[in-house]
């Protein structure tokens, strides 16, 4: 009943004129996700998208920096300015040192209620989703998750497009009668804007009256992932992936071999996760990682819509498949009808030779 069930249903009483109380809500905000000393790249990607929306609305673009250390938040603000923000709201308080739902929800809703943004964007990361859901419910506003496209329509309303029904369709969702309009976007769905280190902006400091004693949830420990490469898949320049066409877990090694020679990352389609050939963090597609590499090579992958939406941002998609009618050839740029278990080793050798020959020559 929830979610997409009302697809297509239009609603009586939709307003054409912007109501008076909406006019207090101006500008586009991007939550700057900052953890363990680093800004999540998705926040910078969102600034690129937010810039376009703000220009369209004739408003400002703002970053929101929440954290424990004021100096770090100034750095976050500078990165936000370099990537297109005009303003950064900073709340630096000890209770915000590590992400926890309660103080972050408090900080965010307080900022929104004080400065009233028209649009609030967050990354659809683990942290962003945890926060967005509580902020939207606290503000009793709409939240559209995992958007793939954001635009402003003729009525000044945010048109947020997202996949629905397992990715087989797209739908455009609007938030009526409430502000701010909230949306999340997955990493790598939007492209990274060029940074301009000369750009500067205004900083607005906001204190939060919240002490550690007031917060029920405590962080006991943080255990970083051992394999530090794991998170890299989404941001890799080159990705080689395999699907069921490889026929066995042993054959998957062929994918890893090519990835290694190319200095890239490797991943696979969802059935391989279900079969236990690869771990879930290597899954590419709608319910796995979205990738945006320069080069994507898919071996033995049919190209189902759920896979396709995760790879369409690649500059060059190369497919190896025995079936000339496989859907992957509908969106790949370059392909070969061949048995991947035979062709992958030969392709790997070809690259290896070229790269080592040239190295000796150079």
């Amino acid at each position, binding site marked *: 009943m929830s*979610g997409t069930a009302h697809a297509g249903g239009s609603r009586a009483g939709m307003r054409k004129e912007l109501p008076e109380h909406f006019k207090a809500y101006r500008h586009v905000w991007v939550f700057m996700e900052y953890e363990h000393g680093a800004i999540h790249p998705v926040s910078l990607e969102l600034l690129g998208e937010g810039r376009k929306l703000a220009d369209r609305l004739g408003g400002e673009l703002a970053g929101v920096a929440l954290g424990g250390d004021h100096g770090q938040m100034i750095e976050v603000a500078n990165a936000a300015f370099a990537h297109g923000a005009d303003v950064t709201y900073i709340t630096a308080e000890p209770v915000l040192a590590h992400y926890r739902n309660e103080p972050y929800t408090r900080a965010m809703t307080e900022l929104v209620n004080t400065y009233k943004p028209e649009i609030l964007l967050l990354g659809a990361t*683990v942290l962003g989703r*945890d926060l*967005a*859901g509580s902020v939207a419910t606290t503000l009793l506003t709409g939240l559209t998750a995992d958007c793939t496209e954001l635009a402003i329509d003729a009525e000044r309303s945010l048109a947020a497009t997202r996949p*629905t029904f397992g990715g087989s369709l*797209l739908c455009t969702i609007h938030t009526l009668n409430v502000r701010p309009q909230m949306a999340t976007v997955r990493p790598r769905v939007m492209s990274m804007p060029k940074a301009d280190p000369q750009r500067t902006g205004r900083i607005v400091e906001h204190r939060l009256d919240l002490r550690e004693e007031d917060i029920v949830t405590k962080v006991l420990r943080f*255990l970083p992932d051992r394999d530090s490469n794991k998170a890299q898949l989404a941001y890799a320049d080159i990705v080689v992936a395999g699907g069921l066409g490889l026929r066995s877990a042993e054959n998957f090694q062929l994918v890893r071999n090519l990835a290694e020679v190319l200095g890239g990352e490797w991943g696979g389609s969802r059935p391989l996760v279900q079969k236990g050939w690869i771990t879930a963090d290597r899954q590419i597609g709608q319910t796995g990682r979205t990738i945006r590499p320069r080069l994507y090579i898919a071996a033995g992958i049919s190209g189902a819509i759920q896979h396709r939406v995760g790879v369409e941002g690649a500059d060059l998609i190369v497919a190896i498949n025995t079936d000339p009618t496989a859907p992957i050839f509908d969106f790949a740029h370059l392909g070969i009808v061949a048995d991947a278990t035979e*062709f992958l080793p030969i392709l790997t050798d070809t690259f290896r030779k070229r790269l080592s020959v040239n190295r000796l020559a*150079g």
Partner: protein
Amino acid sequence: MHIVVCIKQVPDSAQIRVHPVHNTIMRQGVPTIINPYDLFALEEALRLRDRLGGAVTVLTMGPPMAEDSLRKALTFGADRAVLLTDRFFAGSDTLATSYALSMAIQKIGESWGTPDVVFTGKQTIDGDTAQVGPGIARRLGLNQLTYVSAIGAVDLAARTIEVSRRAEGGVQELATRLPALITVLEGTSEIRRGRLADALRAARAEVTVWNAAQAGITEMTKCGLRGSPTVVKNVFAPKGRATKASLLDTREKTPGELAEAMMARIFDALPGIEGDLLAHAAQY
């Protein structure tokens, strides 16, 4: 302890087809299943009950036929099932859904004891938003624990719970107080095979069915379409790329020649990548 698990009946989206001309969902004959992510939540709930004693109540909001999924949950070992169904709920987005469910959970608390933990799945496969769990937590003032991969020490007397949750780049171990809302990460624990005794019991069990009024919901403006700030304005099929892949001609060529041709085409299409590859290779 009393545990509530929210499950949703969803169309098996692996079997959904889109009408090629009208762009409409062809639901006919598509079987419904319990949202796969909710089964992980149910299993964690059952384990917690087995560990500490108490009862598990499963709750769903949906059309009358959603009773099937509740009965299924009973065969796995849930103790009690509640179906929240009313035409007023039709068209609910996540805000309206979390409102209705939180009201029902409150009513469940009044009827059978305040829940110590509420479980939801990580997300649904049809709505796919991962928002309903946090929405319920917020509305009921439960401490929110999302993407939980393991439940550690629970002290019912001190009202504390420790969990591990998947965070960006690692695992975060948290301690908080009960009552809490937990959304369960997939792959934590496969759903058990129900015992015969539970299957027999499930077949005969009463499912409690509540309409809005019976669940104590009086503010109908917070339900269904009226209570949903978001509106779907347009549904459409993804655009295809205009041109298909350019296929290498495999006739009268050796695999080696084909691989050479593919490499050349890749270098052609991506100026600069050859240099980058060489730079990378040089490091090894």
